[in-house]
């Protein structure tokens, strides 16, 4: 939800027009990325701080490039190299960042709700770059952008999300985003990795991946964390791959032009077979490029002038 129009924390309750505005804005941004001179002066003099309490080179770089392409100054604060590791609280760190004059703070945090806490504390805009098992709205937006780019629409598409839904912030943001744009969301994964009440979001739950794949236009394969098996949440990786791994035969059950997506990094041979990951239907690298474009759009929209509001 867009709190006061200042932050991007969650895609729940975000109006379809806002999502459309973000995606529409990302299109001209993508054109800039494809130029020889990948820079526009739009955010000159603005400062974007990436504050990462979890390692994620991919997402952090994507935001930093987005900031730099728009001529903003990008500063990275990594947990391991700052006073964060010396026990400074999130709120204290936030106050320090504000005192230094940041305009936008991009926060990655292992605990759900941390971005809301930050947004309540500081005047700068906060972009949630993933909080615990809550949400990862920019990942979902780049998913939507990629699908819309490839399919020309989102409405009426059948989207399968397969894997560890319980711990997936990407799945939650995807559900809100796709649902808002009129797509049908199907979830597949082991019962022990399916969060309670998830069907109330409007998504449909399948325990049989093959049933879920029937006629699907998009298949989003989630990463399975190895430690979930050690926690006893499912019996083993081999059985997981047998029951929920995306392979060539299963992909045939989806629509012939179905897109295969993955938020990365992939465990090849576990949740996704190499021939699917590198196949013609995979758009995983496009997702990465589009991630920068979508983040540029968000930085632009959130750094409006006097009132810093996303224009609906």
């Amino acid at each position, binding site marked *: 939800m867009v709190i006061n129009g200042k932050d991007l924390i969650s895609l729940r309750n975000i109006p379809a027009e806002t999502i459309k505005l973000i995606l529409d804005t990302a299109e001209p941004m993508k054109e800039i990325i494809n130029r020889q001179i990948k820079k526009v002066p739009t955010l000159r003099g603005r400062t974007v701080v990436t504050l990462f309490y979890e390692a994620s080179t991919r997402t952090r770089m994507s935001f930093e490039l987005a900031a730099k392409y728009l001529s903003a100054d990008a500063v990275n604060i990594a947990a391991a190299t700052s006073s964060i590791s010396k026990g400074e609280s999130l709120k204290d760190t936030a106050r320090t960042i504000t005192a230094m004059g940041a305009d936008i703070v991009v926060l990655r945090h292992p605990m759900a709700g941390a971005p809301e*806490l930050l947004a309540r504390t500081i005047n700068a805009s906060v972009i949630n770059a993933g909080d615990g098992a809550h949400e990862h709205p920019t990942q979902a937006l780049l998913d939507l952008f990629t699908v819309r780019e490839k399919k020309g629409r989102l409405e009426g598409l059948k989207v399968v999300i397969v894997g560890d839904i319980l711990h997936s912030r990407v799945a939650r943001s995807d559900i809100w985003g796709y649902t808002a744009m009129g797509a049908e969301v199907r979830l597949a994964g082991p019962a022990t990795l399916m969060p*309670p009440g998830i069907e109330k979001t409007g998504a449909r739950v399948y325990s049989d991946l093959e049933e879920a794949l029937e006629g699907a236009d998009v298949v989003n394969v989630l990463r399975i964390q190895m430690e979930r098996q050690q926690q006893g949440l499912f019996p083993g990786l081999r059985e997981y791959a047998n029951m929920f791994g995306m392979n060539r035969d299963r992909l045939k059950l989806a629509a012939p032009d179905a897109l295969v997506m993955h938020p990365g990094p992939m465990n090849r041979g576990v949740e996704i077979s190499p021939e699917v990951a590198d196949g013609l239907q995979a758009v995983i690298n496009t997702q990465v490029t589009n991630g920068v474009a979508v983040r540029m759009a968000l930085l632009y929209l959130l750094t409006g002038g006097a009132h810093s509001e996303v224009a609906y």
Partner: protein
Amino acid sequence: MKLLIRGGTVVEPAEGSVLEQDVLLSEGRIAGIGRNLSAAGAEVLDARGKLVVPGLIDMHVHLREPGYEAKETLLTGSRAAVRGGVTSVACMPNTKPVIDNAALVAYIKNTGKALGLARIYQIGAITLGSKGEELAEMGDMKKAGAAAFSDDGQPVTDAALMRRAMQYARMLGMTIISHCENKELSAGGAMHEGYISTLLGLKGIPSSTEEIMVSRDLLLAEETGCRLHIAHVSTAGSVRLVRQAKARGVQVTAEVTPHHFTLTDEAVVGYDTSTKVNPPLRTAADVAAVKEGLADGTIDVIATDHAPHTIEEKDVEYDRAPFGIVGLETAMGLVWTELVVGGVLTPLQAVTKMTLHPARVLNIPGGTLGAGAPADITIIDPAASETVEPSLFESKGRNTPFAGRSLKGLPWAAIVGGRLVMMERRIADSLE
């Protein structure tokens, strides 16, 4: 010194009566009750339009002393109590050190008495250090004045140990208060497990966490004949289990907190850490079941589980915040607004669950306005209303999810041992 409380609606739970009467207090005791009592030699308190009830007893509070004085002390906790119209509290032993021996029980009792505000009772630990390994010296603690035994904050995980604790407590004629939680099921959880926890991406604490232990302890109470009191019942399943156990004659009582009959897990949306409490806020169906349990008598007692924390401790990420809600200063208003105005309980039923019933569970004086009873009285103004403003709390803890909520039916005066200790929410500061 004499005090005549004139013209109030007197609620006497021991008699089940609600009558417009005068109450005369003399030498710390209730001297008489009736119409048009003589005011000769007495100070007169005009209570017309108000409810005169036995002093409220909150049998489940955490006053944090010794060890956690930054959160609360016996002084600030007693001030919070009387501001909330509570004239007796029973403190849980999870302090530092844990109250698990006679000397510590006596220390709390004496310190509390010296403060001269609410009466402070102490609940002793079931096991040493509440570690769930060895039984604490319950017999000695009883002699020193312990009101009951509990490892509240922690479950007694070992069923054999709990069984022995019940056998021993039965011998002493004491009540075991059980904090029902299966730690394997609740591990890492921050809120009720359900759609809202899914929405927020917080790890859930399923209802079975509580119900498994309620079942176990009911079976053990049935087997041992020990009096069992289930603390902070939060789920429909627990209410059902207690109801069934009572029907077959198990000596069980149960309590519910104001937050559990008022709020649902939807209050957690927005990650306000003042909604983080154990057991967690449950669903609307659970709230309805708890109210039904209150109405049909399955739930005997309303207690706050007053659990103050510092602002610094609560003003963090939801997962990092400690569990707990302060309740002493909002309990009466919530009971009146949610249960009495809400049509769940009559004023007599509500008062009974805050006075007579906890007195009986703990086997302590109070809970009645009968002649000779201690002159502990709370006067409630059913017409008064206020908006909850944590900065006005006497408690050090400001961790309430009710800030900004409008409450009706406020404690207007509190009398302990015949002495007026609170009037219109201000503390009579005889100490300073």
